[in-house]
């Protein structure tokens, strides 16, 4: 134990953390394996090595478009829902006002309403509003379903916030908004990052609302779910998934390298979000 402790910060906990993350990656790490397998569906034993699924990717522009659309929708939805979430979470944790609970309940409602109902009704509303269906309307829908998640994460971030810091800022002449921007936000950065991650993740996998609210631009889940009729087409999805995974890691590594450089320059210890 003590030997371990000296080796890694956190002792057994770090072993657990690594194992747990490994658990998270277990199903995901099979994807690259199957993406170079000749069989159409993921299974063992492997039947043979091939690059053909990757080679086929450029010939399925719909799939690539769908992936791009998902990315755009995911980024926009996560940013917007985090912004809305920040406002609401802040109001709920900081102020006491009439109707606090019912309003909160309404905002959290998408968590418990059947998605298909939300989707159909939103479609009706959006058509009533005269909007035409596009990725934008998908974003609208995703923001709605992501807000509860953002809010949940953000409320635990705003909770127990030391008020005297905001008071100090107001005291120094900063407006409510300025205080929020210069003091509150930086201090809840971990919550904001978490909220972005959560809502991006939700949006990336959301299917029904995207289906109802999109016009002719499909998101990845719509495309994939629609294609399940053809087992033979699946490996392309596997290949793309693998590429996206690799891209995520590359981006992350670049970010980490940049951070270290910056850290070396400023000699300060801050997280990715500091």
């Amino acid at each position, binding site marked *: 134990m003590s030997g371990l402790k000296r080796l890694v910060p956190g002792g057994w906990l770090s072993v657990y953390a690594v194992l747990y993350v490994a658990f998270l990656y277990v199903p995901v790490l099979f994807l690259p394996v199957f993406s170079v397998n000749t069989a159409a*569906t993921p299974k063992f034993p492997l*039947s043979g090595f091939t690059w053909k699924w990757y080679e086929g990717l450029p010939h399925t522009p*719909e799939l690539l478009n769908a992936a791009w659309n998902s990315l755009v929708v995911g980024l926009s939805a996560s940013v917007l829902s985090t912004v809305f979430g920040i406002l609401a979470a802040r109001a709920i944790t900081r102020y006491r006002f009439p109707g606090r609970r019912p309003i909160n309940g309404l905002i959290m409602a998408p968590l418990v309403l059947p998605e298909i109902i939300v989707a*159909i009704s939103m479609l009706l509303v959006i058509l009533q509003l005269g909007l035409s269906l596009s990725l934008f309307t998908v974003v609208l829908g995703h923001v709605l379903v992501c807000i509860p998640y953002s809010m949940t994460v953000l409320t635990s971030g705003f909770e127990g916030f030391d008020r005297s810091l905001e008071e100090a800022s107001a005291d120094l002449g900063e407006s409510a908004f300025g205080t929020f921007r210069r003091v509150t936000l930086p201090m809840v950065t971990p919550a904001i990052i978490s909220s972005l991650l959560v809502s991006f993740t939700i949006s990336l996998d959301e299917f029904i609302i995207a289906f109802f609210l999109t016009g002719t631009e499909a998101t990845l889940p719509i495309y994939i779910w*629609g294609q399940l009729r053809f087992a033979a087409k699946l490996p392309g999805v596997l290949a793309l998934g693998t590429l996206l995974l690799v891209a995520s890691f590359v981006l992350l590594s670049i970010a980490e390298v940049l951070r270290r450089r910056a850290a070396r320059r400023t000699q300060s210890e801050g997280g990715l979000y500091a």
Partner: protein
Amino acid sequence: ADPKDLIVLDWSGYEDPLLHPAYTAKYGGEPSFSFFGDEDEAFEKVRAGFKADVGHPCSQSVVKWRDAGIIQPLDTSRIAGWADLNPDIMKMKDLATTADGKAWFMPFDWGNTSLLYRTDHVTTDEAKSLKIFADPKFEGRVTIGDNVDDAYALASLVIGLKDWTKMTDDQFRQASDFLRQVHKNVRFYWTDDTDLNQAVSSGEVDLVWGWNETFVTLKGQGVPIAMNRDTDEGLSTWVCGYVLLKDAPHPDQAYDFFSAVNAPEVSSYMVTTFGYGHGNAAGMTATDHTLLSERGFDNLDKFLDKTLFQQPVPPELKQRMVEEFEKIKAGY
């Protein structure tokens, strides 16, 4: 006209340009596709006001789509090769055409649902009858589709009913009872081809009430699998096709699209790449025979008397089936 004006509400995968080369040739580009993964969801989306020109439902939904008034009759004269459409499919009541002579639906892709089994665990003898699905020996080794139509097609065949539109209450009960028997053996209800493919090839199940496409793909991968279409009770045939949606903004392009997908040249590509039969019988006949036999489409006529065409059933009956099947699946 801009090729993109035409909006096709379709399953993804069908956007393949080789399924409508004539359209591409004429307009110099691809139509716009809007994808769906579930007919009922597509139905609700159109009902809620989504504007598209062409839809792609399957036989069992057509009636519902029609009754809901979201599709319009076809001017068959504007569709090239309408006369070549598979006559057996065209014969189905209330599907392509209604009693008043109006055409609503152009069959495009079709296939069989039949008994597939793993030869390493099931003998040919055992696989002679569809009753094998209820055989306690195969507890936990069976999968049938999470799909009312396929399920009741199976049950109807087992109780000896080929024209299920005429199902009596008593027959309905018998059919349901058989499904309850099957439920005891069911490992899971398959929802899509990919799902099924994975389960069979990984040895999860031995008996499948499934599609020829699965058989072909698995066989191709060297999975020890056989398909018996010549069971004592027979097999079932399903069909999907294109409809013209009500208030379609671009009917002209839509008709060109219909003609394009119905072109006989499409048949061989359809059979090869997708593993489904093509609606154009002429095209199918013209297709390489070895390919057809490889894909299990060689001798449809041979089993004509043994097939249960999944023609539309009356809505009330459909409703009962749905409700009953939901209960059966949940174990009641």
